[in-house]
């Protein structure tokens, strides 16, 4: 079972839900934090991290002795990452998507691909309960790097489909969120009952329908705001699988990096039930 936890809007409680699910699981579980721009799950998981791997993407390097400045590479690059001058070639590495066209199509074989570091994948483990293990993997994009999807793909390479997998998805509905969600068996959309929460939820619902992934909603900070999210879900026949009330003690625990299931142990059974309900359909 691969369960992703997403939300259109940031700050609605994705990480709270993803980490609580992983920590309350009565079986071995793997948690992937794919919010590589701002990974936070480690704050709540406190796993012992024992491996760190640098992640690179390929970028072209021009051998100027072989290059005859024909301009082919500039012509084929769809991302304007190469400019060929009279006697020089400029590579704008931050624009490169690493597709490999230029090096393959160069008639002089003057382009080779070299690694550009974009971030790292780190992993570790945590004992949960008497005999179960939580395996934790997250990615951290280097500050100043623009493109997160290749790093998200790198995190997902460590996904172990033989166990239950929970994925913390970055906010939004564009490429990073899609990259993290795709391949999931089910997606939990965490929202809050406010106009912002509702609007961004409708975008996330559209994205999931486009991807064909079944989903349900968790309303966080329930009691705040208005009833529009509930009305929308009813109208669209979207199941609301859990409501987490707006409570100061939950917010305070979160602020200190304490999981909701530690602060309010009654939630452990709630999250376990939630996972079982989803797993058994």
């Amino acid at each position: 079972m691969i369960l992703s936890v997403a939300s259109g809007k940031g700050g609605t409680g994705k990480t709270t839900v993803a980490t609580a699910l992983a920590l309350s699981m009565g079986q071995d579980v793997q948690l992937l934090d794919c919010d590589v721009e701002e990974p936070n799950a480690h704050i709540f998981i406190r796993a012992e991290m024992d491996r760190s791997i640098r992640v690179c993407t390929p970028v072209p390097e021009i051998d100027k002795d072989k290059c005859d400045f024909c301009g082919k590479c500039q012509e084929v690059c769809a991302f304007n990452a190469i400019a060929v001058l009279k006697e020089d070639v400029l590579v704008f590495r931050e624009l490169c998507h690493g597709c490999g066209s230029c090096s393959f199509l160069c008639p002089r074989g003057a382009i080779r691909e070299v690694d550009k570091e974009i971030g790292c994948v780190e992993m570790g483990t945590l004992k949960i309960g008497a005999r179960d293990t939580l395996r934790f993997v997250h990615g951290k994009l280097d500050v100043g790097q623009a493109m997160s999807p290749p790093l998200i793909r790198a995190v997902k390479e460590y996904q172990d489909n033989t166990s239950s997998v929970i994925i913390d998805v970055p906010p939004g509905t564009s490429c990073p969120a899609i990259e993290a969600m795709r391949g999931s068996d089910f997606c939990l959309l965490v929202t809050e009952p406010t106009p912002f929460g509702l609007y961004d939820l409708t975008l996330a619902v559209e994205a999931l329908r486009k991807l064909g992934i079944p989903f349900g909603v968790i309303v966080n900070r329930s009691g705040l705001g208005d009833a529009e999210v509930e009305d929308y879900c009813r109208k669209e026949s979207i199941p609301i699988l859990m409501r987490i009330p707006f409570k100061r003690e939950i917010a305070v625990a979160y602020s200190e990096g304490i999981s909701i299931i530690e602060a309010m142990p009654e939630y452990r059974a709630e999250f376990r039930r939630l996972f079982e309900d989803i797993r058994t359909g």
Partner: protein
Amino acid sequence: MKQLVVISGKGGTGKTVLTASFAALAESSVVADCDVDAADLHLLLQPTVIEKHIFAAGKCARIDQTLCDQCGECVDRCRFDAISEDFVVDPISCEGCAFCHFVCPTGAIEMQERTSGEWFVSETRFGPMVHAQLGIAEENSGKLVSVVRQKAKEMAEAGKHDWVIVDGAPGIGCPVIASLSGADCALVVTEPTLSGLHDADRVIGVARHFNVPVKLLVNKYDLNIEMTAEIEGYCEMNNVPFIGRIAFDESVVKAMVEGKTIVEFSDGRAKEEVVNVWRELRASI
């Protein structure tokens, strides 16, 4: 003319509520919503759209099945797993690089323009607004942000406005980087949580990497006073000007429900603090 970009690293810290309030308080501004992925500012500013533009950036491969002889060259070359075994392109995976188009021996692959969003020039009760909506599951959000930023700047210059006020995106990736370009100040809005501090630290790194001066404010500071103090300490150690704190106030949500900014809605504590922050910003940028 000064350009202020409001960012946060972490989502949900109150960027958009503050941006809208600053737009209400500034005497003469153009406001830009650069959170094109999950744009919410229009819910508070309720713009009347004057111009609507299609945003077409990037392309998508399409295979003409009548020309394709299924040699498999395209599948082998594509690094984004965008072409299935039966030679159909998945538009969500296609990066638009055109590698397949160049290597196809039968010329069966065409690159087609893709519409990846829309952008708008609008009028609000506080002045002009430029905003956008990226299509669902689309790419190139950084480019769309650049379009919005550029248009807002041009309008501010042409209309002799004092400010461009920008609502940035969460995270530290391409839309955030695009929204920071040319800014006079990046205001980092954070909350008194470990995650908030962690994320603020990373986005401050990004702003500094691109030589944009930063200031920080803590929103909902009274949810954890000790953590607020810790963030203030962090600011002092890292030479980040600490510009103020705003209390948690349920009237912020009530204002949002009514589609208003906090400064129009109540005379509560949060309003007073927002007004003070704006005064401080106006004086110091």
